[in-house]
């Protein structure tokens, strides 16, 4: 068993390393290793960048995790909620055809649209399908179809050109010792952390939040306790949609707005929620943070193109040691 684990880890490591080795063989530049006095500063910078990336993944992943927790659906279309939020805010804020709103009201409107989109797909697609007893695999395939549909609607409406919001686009970094961060990135990180804390308080301290956790733990028992499960599920879809849209605006702000940005982020979201423990909102937060930090820290030694691969390698290694994820709980049986 131990040998099998070591072999799997070594195989995964080999697969991840292969492109780096071939790139070196071709004489391409790779980041310098841990040499020289500037390495500590670069490592700190990568850590800060990683935390920022991690909290953005976390905001988008929480909804995905809550949906899985409450209805056991792996929503492949969740990335498109991110894209819809980012592109709608772009339309309101920076598109020549839009009203030219400031980014803040545009972001609020995008969050509202994300929540409405979440509600619409629950009421219009998932609820009727669940009522007809559609199996989970079939539902999963439907999410892939929905993902393609939404992504290509965005492609038609938004186009392929990357875009930036009208405000907070170019800023000079504030130096905090060896670390430099722009006021925009600092604000996004702080806001994202505050939103995640808000979600935690909502889940832990409010009646609705406890009902969400109860439905995640045992749907039928929640219904038997007097909880209107359908309403709770609707709330989860709206919360997830709103958070994904907000994450989309944040991601579009620190990177660029593209028609497939959510799809690209989706793998990181899945990695985050699996690493943290499937179905656990707190696990999604912790897992996403780890994924973000690992992805950025890996750029200290390896090409940037491989940062996602390193994050996924860490996922495999952690699951080999702790199959239930970081915060997933092994349950007593019997």
């Amino acid at each position: 068993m131990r040998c099998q684990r070591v072999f799997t880890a070594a195989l995964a490591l080999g697969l991840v390393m292969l492109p780096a080795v071939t790139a070196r063989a071709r004489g391409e530049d790779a980041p310098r290793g841990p040499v020289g006095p500037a390495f500590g500063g670069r490592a700190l910078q990568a850590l800060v960048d990683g935390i920022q990336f991690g909290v953005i993944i976390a905001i988008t992943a929480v909804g995905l995790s809550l949906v899985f927790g409450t209805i056991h659906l792996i929503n492949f279309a969740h990335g498109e909620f991110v894209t819809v939020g980012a592109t709608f805010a772009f339309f309101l804020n920076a598109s020549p055809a839009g009203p030219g709103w400031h980014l803040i009201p545009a972001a609020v409107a995008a969050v509202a649209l994300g929540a409405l989109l979440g509600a619409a797909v629950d009421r219009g697609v998932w609820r009727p399908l669940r009522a007809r007893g559609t199996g989970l695999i079939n539902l999963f395939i439907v999410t892939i179809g929905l993902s393609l549909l939404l992504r290509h609607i965005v492609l038609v409406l938004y186009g392929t050109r990357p875009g930036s919001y009208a405000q907070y686009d170019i800023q000079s970094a504030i130096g905090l010792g060896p670390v430099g961060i722009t006021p925009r990135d600092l604000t996004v990180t702080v806001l994202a952390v505050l939103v995640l804390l808000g979600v935690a308080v909502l889940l832990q301290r409010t009646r609705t939040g406890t009902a969400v956790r109860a439905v995640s733990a045992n749907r039928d028992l929640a219904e038997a306790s007097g909880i209107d499960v359908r309403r709770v599920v609707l709330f989860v879809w709206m919360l997830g949609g709103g958070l994904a849209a907000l994450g989309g605006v944040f991601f579009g702000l620190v990177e660029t707005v593209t028609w497939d940005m959510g799809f690209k982020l989706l793998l990181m979201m899945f990695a985050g929620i699996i690493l943290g423990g499937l179905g656990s909102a707190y696990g999604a937060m912790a897992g996403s943070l780890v994924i973000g930090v690992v992805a950025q820290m890996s750029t200290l030694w390896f090409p940037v193109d491989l940062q996602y691969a390193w994050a996924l390698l860490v996922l495999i290694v952690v699951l080999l040691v702790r199959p239930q994820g970081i915060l997933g709980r092994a349950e007593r049986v019997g």
Partner: protein
Amino acid sequence: MRANKRERNTPVLAAEGIVAGYLPGVDVLRGCSIEVGPGELVGVIGPNGAGKSTLAKAVFGLLRVRAGTVRLNGEDVTGRPAHELVRRGVGYVPQLQNVFASLTVEENLRMGVYLRPRDYARRAAAVEELFPVLAARRRQKAGSMSGGERQMLAMARALMTEPQLLLLDEPSAGLSPLHQDHVFDRVREINGAGVAVLMVEQNARRCLQICHRGYVLDQGRNAYTGRGTDLLHDEKVIACYLGTLARAR
């Protein structure tokens, strides 16, 4: 006065001609009927696959009723969702996964009064008197409790709403004989406090010993009905279901 008398005579639960099942076109219950009077303790026994648990789920609205009616205090509640029946005074304890494993004991009890959160302190004190083991375990995750303790917690959660009717789905399943005795004693206590109880049970002998009336189901239909003690000594019930071991006792 006449209205009060009628209320006293109206069954708390009356299910008639229930047809229900899980797969399209396959009926598990095929016209099953059952009645629970105010303050009555009614047992439902039968062989595996007779439809006992399915009956509890159909009555409680967790499974769609294909034909037949379910009346609660005379009012038709057929097809109403379970959370609405909880609001109308029905408590339900499922056979499996009957606690919120990832929640603490206290949170489980709070879920029991989800509809009336202000009643928590009063109701928690009442159920902890019935199940003292829970008071010392408030902060413990329900998933880490033993089977017997989970069953206590499950019954306590259902009692938090002060139900007038409690549906128990095989409360002794998987428990040691000692814990089974404990569960049946608590069921009797709960019923003694005036709560009508419908208990679906695999342990037929123990169930019929404490029940006022019993129903024997077979292949989704009522096979025999009678007083608990009568069914216990009924030759047909012994021959078809309880077995010769029961006669020997």
